[in-house]
């Protein structure tokens, strides 16, 4: 069950921000860390990724989900808002459309959005939880993705069942492997194939991700050896101290130590490469954000800029970015983004 359905206090962005900004916790404000790195105020360098979050509906309820997504969530993007997204996109030459959720494929407008973005000549990425490919209602989804040459970015927190199921739910690992095999059979992830299949690792607990190149090598070896599965690249993502992962941190007494770990591992080089500097994030209702995490904390773009996709303007390309304590999650160690580390491996 999602935090929202359980009426948990942390379901509200205000309560999450209250915890993150609590004066009782000795934490250097993120702005101060940016200042010391010569990065304050943080600004966008352009927009190369148009990231559309089509809603919170998902067939899984993962323990770390920063969206608080699940089968019980009903907030999804309407066709009208999807049209506004395509209209805004068409005004630009932004090369990549990154579609996320929830399970974005469960939005009835997903396929329309993909075909429109592709017809505009844009590269499309689908952030896929894998198990969605096995749902009876999505029997032809993998073929659809292949026909439109959609890049699949698939979540798989570990190459073993125990760890994966602990985070994503019982039986999810087995379904994920079956889905990966289905994608491989269509050509996804095969050497030299144009059908890109990239995996996303995130820690199954309150610790930072390993070196991306090292864990990628483990995944490649173990998935091939145990399951005959191949893929192109693996991206490591740090768990953000918001929503369900924040609830986990607080419930298990790990919050202070995790925040100290993130703050202690602040890396100015990682901060310079954070994804909000080249991404515009659009919420299910059309609201504009600097990133998907700000979206979940209800922190829209600021500083006098338009806040809805219907009002999209070129000034958004060079906007000042809204930051907070959660941003330490993207700047720790080698950095973290939807495309993996933000520093050279």
């Amino acid at each position: 069950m999602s935090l929202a359905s359980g009426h948990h206090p942390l379901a509200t962005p205000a309560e999450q921000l209250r915890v993150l900004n609590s004066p009782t916790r000795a934490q250097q404000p993120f702005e101060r860390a940016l200042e010391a790195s010569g990065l304050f105020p943080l600004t966008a360098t352009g927009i190369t990724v148009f990231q559309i979050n089509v809603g919170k509906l998902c067939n899984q309820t993962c323990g770390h989900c920063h969206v608080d997504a699940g089968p019980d969530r009903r907030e999804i993007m309407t066709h009208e808002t999807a049209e506004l997204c395509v209209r805004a996109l068409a005004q630009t030459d932004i090369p990549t459309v990154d579609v996320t959720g929830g399970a974005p494929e469960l939005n009835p407008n997903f396929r329309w959005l993909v075909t429109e973005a592709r017809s505009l000549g844009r590269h499309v990425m689908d952030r896929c939880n894998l198990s969605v490919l096995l749902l009876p209602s999505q029997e032809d989804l993998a073929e659809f993705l292949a026909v439109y040459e959609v890049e699949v970015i698939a979540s798989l927190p570990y190459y073993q069942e125990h760890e994966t199921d602990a985070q994503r739910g019982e039986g999810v690992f087995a379904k994920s492997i079956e889905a990966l095999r289905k994608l491989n059979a269509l050509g996804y992830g095969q050497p030299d194939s144009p059908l890109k299949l990239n995996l996303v690792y995130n820690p199954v607990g309150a610790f930072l991700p390993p070196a991306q190149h090292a864990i990628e090598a483990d995944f490649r070896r173990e998935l091939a050896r145990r399951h005959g599965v191949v893929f192109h690249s693996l991206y490591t993502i740090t768990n953000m101290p918001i929503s369900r992962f924040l609830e986990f941190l607080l419930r298990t007494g790990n919050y202070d130590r995790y925040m100290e770990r993130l703050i202690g591992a602040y890396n100015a080089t990682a901060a310079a490469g954070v994804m909000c500097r080249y991404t515009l994030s659009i919420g299910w209702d059309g609201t504009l954000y600097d990133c998907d995490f700000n979206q979940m904390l209800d922190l829209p773009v600021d500083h006098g800029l338009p806040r809805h996709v219907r009002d999209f303007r070129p000034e958004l390309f060079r906007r000042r970015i809204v930051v907070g304590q959660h941003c330490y999650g993207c700047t720790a160690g080698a950095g973290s983004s939807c495309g993996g580390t933000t520093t050279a491996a």
Partner: protein
Amino acid sequence: MAGYYHAEDLPHFADVGKNAPELWQKFADWYGAVFAEGALTEREKSLIALAVAHAVQCPYCIDAYTQACLEKGSNLDQMTEAVHVASAIRGGASLVHAVQMRNAAAKVNM
């Protein structure tokens, strides 16, 4: 003093350097160099450290290197095997002394 081995003491390890700072700095530099990737990977070194931490039964080290092993991508199966290696050596080190016992007994027995 209320007791020993408090988890919150671990971040104060560097306070040891307030006295004999030059010695602390030499230790810190050497320690950092030891754990840098070399002929062994950082992950292999963390697994060795975890095993040794159990052999010397240092709760600070067990805490720190459990976290480090996870952050290097190791899993509990691998970490448990590493601890078994340390335990096997500890156990074997006791047992191999039975040769001394046998020698001593052979000398006095008829």
